[in-house]
C-alpha cells in the first residue's frame, strides 16, 4: 500500500515526540516536511527538537522553522508546563539545516505536487497553517485531510475551558476552521483524557531493549509521569490514576486509523472577544446554529486499541539504532 503523504506542523513539546514515534513507527506515512511553530517552545527550539527526533525515527524530511508569534493575540509567556524539557535534557546540540522555503510555501508546493493527496497533521498553534491559507487561498482544495490536536469540549488546560494550542492563536484556529478544508479531524483534550496509557503500560518502557533508540526518552517520560503525581494542582485537575496523557499521540492515532475512531460531525466555533473565554472552542452539539458541521470531532475509541497501536509502534524500533 502506498504511503500517505503528510506534512507535520508542530510546536514540538514532549507530547509531540510520542506522536512522531507513532507516525514513523506505524510505517503508514511518507513525511514530506516538518514545520515548526512557537508554542510549547519557540519555533527555533522546536526545529532543533524535530531535527533530533528525525535522528531517532529515521525520518529525513526537511525541518522548516515557522512562525514565532501568533497572528494577532499576544499572550504573556508560555502557559504550558510540559514544554520540551525531556527532549532538551536528552538531545544535546543539534544542527538544523537551513531551509530555503517558509512553511506556508512548502505546504502549498507539496500540496499541489501531491495532487490532492496531502494530509496535514497539526499539533501546535495553527499560525503556520493559517498563514498558508491566507497566502494561498486555493490551498484547501489540494489538501485531503487536516488532523488537529487542539481544543477542548470540557475542561481546558490554559484557562477554565481553553486548550493551549487554540488559546495561543485563536485567530489562526478560526482561520483554519473557516478555510473550507475538505475534512478536518479535531482531537480535543477530552478525547485525549480518555485515550491514554495506563500506568502499567508506561512502566513497561523500562523493559525495552537497549537497542531501541526511544528507550531513554520513554523512561524519562515515565519518570515525569510519576513526578506529576506529586503535584497537587495536577492531581486536582487530572486525577491520580497515574495515566500517561498524550494529546498529540492520540491525534496521531486518529490520523493513522480513522476507522477505529467514532467521530461527531459538529459545527465548531472559537471565542475571540471574551475576556474570560478567549480561545475557548465551542461545539454546537445541539444544533442551535444553522451552520453546517466544519469538523469531525473525535469522541471515542477503544483504549486497548490505542495502547496496542502505541506499543506496536514502540517495538518497531527495537532493532533500530540511532542514526
Amino acid at each position, binding site marked *: 500500500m502506498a504511503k500517505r503523504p503528510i506534512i507535520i506542523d508542530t510546536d514540538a513539546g514532549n507530547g509531540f515526540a510520542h506522536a512522531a514515534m507513532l507516525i514513523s513507527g506505524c510505517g503508514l506515512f511518507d513525511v514530506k516536511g516538518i514545520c515548526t511553530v512557537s508554542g510549547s517552545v519557540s519555533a527555533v527550539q522546536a526545529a532543533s527538537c524535530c531535527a533530533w527526533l528525525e535522528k531517532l525515527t529515521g525520518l529525513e524530511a526537511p525541518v522548516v522553522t515557522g512562525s514565532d508569534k501568533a497572528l494577532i493575540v499576544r499572550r504573556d509567556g508560555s502557559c504550558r508546563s510540559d514544554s520540551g524539557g525531556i527532549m532538551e535534557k536528552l538531545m544535546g546540540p543539534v544542527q538544523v539545516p537551513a531551509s530555503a522555503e517558509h512553511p506556508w510555501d512548502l505546504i502549498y508546493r507539496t500540496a499541489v505536487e501531491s495532487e490532492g493527496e496531502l494530509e496535514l497533521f497539526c499539533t501546535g498553534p495553527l499560525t503556520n497553517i493559517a498563514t498558508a491559507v491566507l497566502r494561498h487561498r486555493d490551498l484547501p482544495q489540494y489538501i485531503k485531510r487536516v488532523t488537529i490536536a487542539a481544543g477542548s469540549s*470540557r*475542561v481546558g488546560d490554559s484557562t*477554565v475551558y481553553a486548550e493551549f494550542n487554540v488559546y495561543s492563536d485563536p485567530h489562526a484556529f478560526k482561520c483554519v476552521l473557516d478555510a473550507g478544508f475538505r475534512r478536518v479531524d479535531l482531537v480535543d483534550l477530552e478525547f485525549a483524557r480518555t485515550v491514554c496509557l495506563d500506568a502499567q503500560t508506561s512502566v513497561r518502557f523500562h523493559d525495552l531493549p537497549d537497542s531501541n533508540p526511544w528507550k531513554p526518552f520513554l523512561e524519562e517520560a515515565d519518570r515525569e509521569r510519576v513526578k506529576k503525581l506529586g503535584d497537587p494542582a495536577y492531581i486536582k485537575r487530572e486525577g491520580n490514576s497515574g495515566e500517561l496523557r498524550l494529546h498529540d499521540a492520540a491525534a496521531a492515532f486518529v490520523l493513522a486509523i480513522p476507522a477505529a475512531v467514532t467521530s461527531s460531525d459538529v459545527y465548531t466555533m472559537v471565542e475571540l472577544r*471574551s475576556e*474570560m*473565554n478567549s480561545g475557548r472552542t*465551542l461545539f454546537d452539539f*445541539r444544533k442551535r446554529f444553522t451552520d453546517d458541521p466544519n469538523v469531525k470531532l473525535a469522541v471515542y475509541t477503544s483504549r486497548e486499541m490505542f495502547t496496542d497501536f502505541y506499543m506496536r509502534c514502540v517495538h518497531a524500533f527495537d532493532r533500530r539504532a540511532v542514526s
Partner: protein
Amino acid sequence: MNGPIPVIIDTDIGVDDAYAVMLAFSSPVLKVLGVTTSYGNVSADDSTVNAIKILELLEKRCRVAKGEEGPLFGKRRRYSSSRGSFLHGKDGLGNKAYTLPSPLHVETHEDAVSYMAQLIRKSDTKVTLVALGPMTNIALLLLTYPELKNRIDGIAMMGGSAYGGNTLPAGEANIVADPEAAQIVLQSGVRIVMCGLECTEKAYFIKDDLEMFRLVGGSVGRFYYDMTQDYMNATEKLTGSRRAVIHDSVPVAWLINPSVIKAKPCYIEIDLSGQYTRACTVTDEFCIDRKPNAMMAFELDRDLFVRMHIEAFRRYR
C-alpha cells in the same frame, strides 16, 4: 434547624416551575413566604397570572407580586422567550392554562423587589431565595437593599451550566435572559447553590411517572399530567427523547432533601463579553488559585427525585 425553612420563590412560571411550586408548597420542610414573578418562559404578566392560577389549584393562600419585565441592561422591552413558548406552550402551562379557573384574587400592588424585601425584613429567621427564572428581580433586591444580604440564608438557583448550554452552545436560558443580573448575584457573597444543566437534565419524568402523578394526585395530579403532554412532545422534538425535564424542581428538591443532588464547591462567574460565550457560567471546578463562591450541583438521584414528587402529589389528593 428548628421549624420549616422560610423561602421566597422567584419564578417565570412555565411547566417545570409549576412542578417546583407544587413541590415546595407540599413539603412540611419549607414555608413559602411569597411568590414573585418575572419574564422568561412567558412575559411577566402571564407569569403572574400563571402563578396565581397554580396557587389556586393547589388551594394555597400566598401573595404573588409581579416583577421585572426585561433584563437589567439593554432595551427595557417586554420579554418572553420564543424557545420558552415552544417548550412551555403559548400560555406557559403547556397550553392548558385555560382549563384552570380565572384568578379569584389579583396580584399585590407591591412590586416583586419591594415585596421580597418586606418578607425578608419581617421573617424571624434568615430567608432562602429560590430562583427559577432570570435573576433580574434578585439582582435588583441585592443592589437596592444591601442591608438585607445578611438576612438571606442562601440562594438555590436553577440556571447555568459548566460545560454547554441549551439556548446557546455555552449559555443556559435563565442566564442568557439576563447575564448581568446573574453576575451581580454570583458576586454578592450570598451563599449560592447552582443547579445547572449538568444536574437538572437528569431530573426528568417519563410517561409512567406522569401516569402515577395522575393516579395519586387527584385534580392536581390530573392537571399536571395534562399540562406536561405538550411539554414532553416539544422536548422530544428538540432532543429526540420522550422525557419531561423538570429543571426547576431541582433546587426545591434539594432544599427539602439535600441528598437528592451531589454538589461541589466551584468558582463561578458570568462571561459578559464573548461573541459566542456571553452568558456562559464560567465554572472553575478545581479552584486551584481562587476561593469557591458557589456550590455546583452535578449529579442527581433521579429515583429519589421522582419519589419526592409522587409523595408531593399524594399530599394534594
